[in-house]
């Protein structure tokens, strides 16, 4: 058990291509951190640099306080679960799980004992003599987890472990992961592009974009207080609505007509981007004129997409009994308490939003 | 069969073409597979080596192209279809023999003098007596005449050039030509003292090794096969002579007069290289290397190199192995045989020797051409009197193979001469039975 710290980690490739740009991150002992971001944002690279499979260009990586930069992957005492599981095809399930222990010189009998115990936890005892080719996707995933768990490493690293599973299996594996997390709390860095996984499993979420960390925080904080436009748009589905607006003395004015009240101090006349989540907008007798474009009933609610007079699309999450028809002209009102204000130039959230 | 059919076709074509004026000179007479006009009614097929008409040497090729052009212009109703033999002589000649036996051989072909006996005994050669006079045949060197005629006196091939092995020496190191084995050994050791390698000769696994060594066996009067062609080299007196000649080689290597590397020499070119590098003062090589050295060495170095007859056990007992190429007819068609004979006469015998500096096979021709005026030709012509062709018997290649093995084993110390000779004889006798 140990904490993990990255300090100003840079990773550049041959032709000046920057994969990681001064990434700094502290993961507490037994904390479960999920790194999320679009593909190519550097989240997998971060993981591989921590594991030692890829070498950082500069910066420090500490595990349990000790700098591990110069240690080979095997000496860092981390375990990793790969997206394609990377099971050794020519070894049995037991061989796969026990490989790391054997390489570390543990006696055969003791390895057997440890493997058996892990297999029981993962409920794969009857698969121990099979080879990976004879397993289903979910079973392989469990074996890969077993291979990581059996070593009781200081740090667990997961590289999109659920992305090769079908949707139904993914949901059940997600809750399984949570159960294992409870059962064996270990410092964990979990990489995914799926924000649902991030929101449901993480103690803290790290949002990455273009090799940089955009925001770090508990899931709901990230959701409620996105630090910038990127996080605001990336987290949440449907995405946050964003409209160009101008600050007034009492709020913000959208397209010179609709006014939204905002509290707090402000620079009057300043151009901003006003953001509000779909659940903060609803039709009303007055307000911003808009036309209904599409309706998506998904059972417990309806996702409605409006189009403003200026042509901007606005999504809204409405109760299932809402009576609207496509093409209908309505007025929209925004819950000003839930509005966010961003600087259009830097994308950073402005204080006045809260 | 095929060319007879072609000939009929050609005749039809010629009949149709009557009245159309054609200029021979205006067309390409010589191509990669033909000499003459493509529509000439008569065809002779000819298998030749790639050293004359198709030589990579421009001067040689041009000279032969002129000869062939002249020859075919005088016979406008003929064309020669040429087939180039590959460099792998043993395999090539074996294939030619097989084709000839199956009746698929060319009308006319170059045959290595050492393989001629095989073709004679396979009865695939057409006599060419009509095209040479008795006097011309009698003028051939004895070993040549014996090889190209059969018991009935039929002339089955024309041996158009020969070659022989001689001793080359750098007169700056070895002023006087060694005449005997003893003198050769002493002279070699003297060159070793002068920082050279000693005497070089072929000792690896190839025909040249046997051929060069046979001079020492023949010089004592040794015989490889008896009159019926049975291998007798390990019997009676021959055995003693064989061992004496082998021990001579062994002594050269054991005493340091020759370097152990001779068992890896499988190429006459190695001697040219050593001469050019100035690392040797003596080697046993072919007469054709004289011209090669002239082209390779600086003038003052070349002037120091001289040739002499291969030393024998005594001054009077000498021999040298002779080779060269013959041309023979294999066709049933008298006209094709005639063209083949005329081609030998007008292009190869004499003319060709002069162009390429190849040794003619009769004394008269040395007088006829200025090309043979150099002092070295006196040595060659004299040595040819002691010339000895390899026995023209089917078992010869296998005898040669076993002598190569024997020389390698003895010189590398893998076997004693007696053991090696017994092994060679056993192998040859077994092969002879199967033949």
């Amino acid at each position, binding site marked *: 058990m140990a904490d993990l710290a990255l300090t100003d980690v840079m990773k550049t490739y041959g032709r000046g291509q920057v994969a990681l740009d001064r990434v700094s991150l502290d993961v507490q002992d037994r904390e479960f951190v999920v790194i999320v971001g679009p593909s190519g944002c550097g989240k997998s690279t971060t993981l591989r640099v921590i594991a030692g499979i890829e070498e950082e260009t500069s910066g420090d990586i500490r595990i349990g306080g000790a700098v591990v930069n110069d240690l080979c992957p095997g000496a860092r005492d981390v375990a990793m679960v790969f997206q*394609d599981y990377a099971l050794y095809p020519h070894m049995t399930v037991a061989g796969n799980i026990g490989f*790391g222990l054997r390489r570390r010189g543990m006696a055969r009998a003791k390895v057997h004992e440890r493997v058996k115990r892990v297999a029981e936890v993962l409920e794969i005892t009857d698969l121990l003599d099979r080879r990976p080719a004879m397993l*289903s996707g979910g079973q392989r995933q469990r074996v890969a987890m077993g291979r990581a768990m059996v070593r009781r490493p200081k740090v667990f690293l997961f590289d999109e472990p659920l992305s090769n599973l079908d949707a139904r299996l993914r949901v059940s594996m997600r809750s399984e992961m949570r159960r294992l997390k409870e059962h064996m709390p270990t410092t964990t860095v979990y990489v995914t592009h799926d924000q649902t996984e991030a929101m449901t499993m993480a103690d803290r979420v790290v949002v990455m974009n273009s090799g940089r960390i955009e925001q770090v925080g508990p899931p709901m904080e990230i959701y409620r207080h996105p630090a910038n436009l990127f996080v605001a748009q990336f987290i949440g589905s449907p995405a946050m609505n964003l409209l160009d607006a101008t600050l007034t003395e009492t709020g913000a004015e959208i397209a010179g007509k609709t006014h939204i009240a905002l509290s707090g101090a402000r620079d009057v006349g300043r151009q901003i981007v006003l953001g509000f989540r779909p659940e903060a907008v609803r039709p009303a007798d007055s307000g911003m004129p808009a036309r209904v474009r599409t309706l998506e009933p998904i059972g417990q609610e309806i996702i409605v997409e409006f189009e403003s007079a200026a042509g901007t699309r606005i999504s809204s999450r409405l109760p299932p009994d809402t009576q609207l028809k496509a093409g209908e002209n309505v007025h929209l009102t925004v819950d000003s308490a839930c509005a966010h204000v961003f600087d259009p130039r830097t994308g950073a959230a402005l204080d006045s939003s809260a | 069969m095929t060319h007879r059919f072609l000939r009929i076709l050609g005749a039809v074509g010629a009949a149709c073409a009557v009245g159309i004026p054609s200029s021979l000179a205006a067309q390409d007479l010589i191509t990669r597979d033909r000499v003459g006009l493509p529509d000439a009614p008569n065809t002779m097929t000819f298998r030749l080596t790639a050293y004359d008409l198709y030589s990579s040497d421009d001067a040689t090729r041009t000279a032969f192209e002129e000869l062939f052009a002249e020859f075919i212009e005088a016979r406008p109703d003929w064309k020669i279809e040429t087939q180039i033999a590959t460099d792998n002589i043993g395999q090539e000649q*074996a294939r030619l023999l097989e084709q000839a036996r199956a009746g698929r051989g060319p009308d006319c072909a170059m045959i290595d003098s050492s393989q001629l006996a095989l073709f004679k005994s396979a009865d695939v050669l057409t006599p060419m007596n009509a095209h040479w006079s008795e006097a011309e045949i009698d003028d051939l060197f004895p070993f040549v005449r014996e090889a190209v005629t059969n018991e009935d006196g039929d002339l089955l091939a024309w041996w158009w050039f020969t070659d022989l092995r001689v001793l080359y020496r750098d007169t700056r190191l070895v002023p006087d030509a060694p005449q005997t084995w003893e003198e050769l050994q002493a002279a070699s050791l003297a060159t070793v003292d002068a920082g050279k390698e000693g005497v070089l000769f072929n000792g690896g696994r190839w025909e040249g090794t046997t051929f060069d060594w046979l001079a020492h066996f023949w010089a004592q009067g040794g015989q490889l096969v008896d009159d019926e062609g049975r291998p007798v080299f390990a019997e009676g007196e021959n055995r003693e002579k064989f061992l004496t000649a082998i021990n001579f080689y062994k002594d050269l290597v054991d005493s340091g007069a020759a370097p152990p590397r001779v068992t*890896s020499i499988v190429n006459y070119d190695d001697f040219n290289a050593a001469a050019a590098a100035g690392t040797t003062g003596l080697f046993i090589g072919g007469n054709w290397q004289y011209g090669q050295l002239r082209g390779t060495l600086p003038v003052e170095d070349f002037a120091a190199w001289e040739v002499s007859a291969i030393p024998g056990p005594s001054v009077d007992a000498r021999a040298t192995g002779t080779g060269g190429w013959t041309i023979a007819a294999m066709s049933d068609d008298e006209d094709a045989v005639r063209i083949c004979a005329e081609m030998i006469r007008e292009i190869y015998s004499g003319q060709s020797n002069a162009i390429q500096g190849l040794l003619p096979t009769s004394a008269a021709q040395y007088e006829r051409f200025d090309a043979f005026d150099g002092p070295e030709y006196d040595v060659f012509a004299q040595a040819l009197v002691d010339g000895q062709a390899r026995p023209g018997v089917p078992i010869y290649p296998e005898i040669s193979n076993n002598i190569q093995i024997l020389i*390698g*084993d003895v010189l590398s110390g893998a076997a004693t001469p007696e053991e090696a000779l017994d092994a060679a004889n056993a192998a040859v006798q077994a092969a002879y039975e199967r033949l």
Partner: protein
Amino acid sequence: MTMSDTPVAAQKAPRRPKRARPAAWPWLAPALLMLGAFYLVPILDVLRLAFGDATLLRSVESYGLEGIQQTLSSPALPGVLWVTVVFTAASVIGILATGMLVALTVVRGEMRGLWGMSALRTVVLTAWVVPGIANGLIWQMLFSEAPFGALNSTLAVFGIAPVRWLSDPSNAMVSAAIANVWQGTAFAMIVFYAARKGLSQDLYAAAAIDGAGPFARFLFITLPQMRAAILVATVLVTIQTLNTFDVILALTGGGPGRATEVLSLFTFNTVFYNFDLSGGSALALILVLIALLLTVVYIRLLGDRPDQDK
């Protein structure tokens, strides 16, 4: 790659028809005819000749076991077989080891973006396209024991005494094997290179994290994962080496003595020096039998794992 959650083993293999439907024959006939004409007929002819008494000078006059018996009892044969065993073993081990070394070096170099990897690959491949005879001649120049010989004069620069590369019987065997390895490496390299390229990098990452060092990764990942490629390369390289005689013919001619006369060269000599077509055919049959036997042995040793993931 998507995976269903159904265990692969539980799925039933699609049932194959028990016999080929008659409609298949017209489609197979051209291939069978070609194979028959170009492979079967020559093989049958060799069989016929082996039991006959044909020479290059005459065709078979009588049939029997005499020829085979005489060929097998040839006093030279045991030595030739031993030379063949040594040459083949040295060549196969040498070719596989250097082929593996070059392939892994190239793959590793490419991964690290090192310059010159495709050049290295090309150089090795060049050796492959050099004809055997030319290869023999090249090495003959290198091994030349003349005072100006390439290797020996290089050694002399470092004060090392000249080596009798070709004139010493046991050295000659080593030299012949080196020449053959130099040429044969390319083939093994291509096979191993392709196989290694096909392996998942994550496997190596997983093994590294599991604490496997470079040698353990080679032992536990590379070797087992490349088992099929190694089997294929071993079989083909062995057969190719057994059939090799052009390199040796040009390099040593089989000498000194019979020190480098392998079975294929002995066969060649039997036919083209001895003109013994039947004896040569009998030897060719022995060659075929040895190749078949070795192939079965290799498959037993290397190919008995039924369930590979590939």
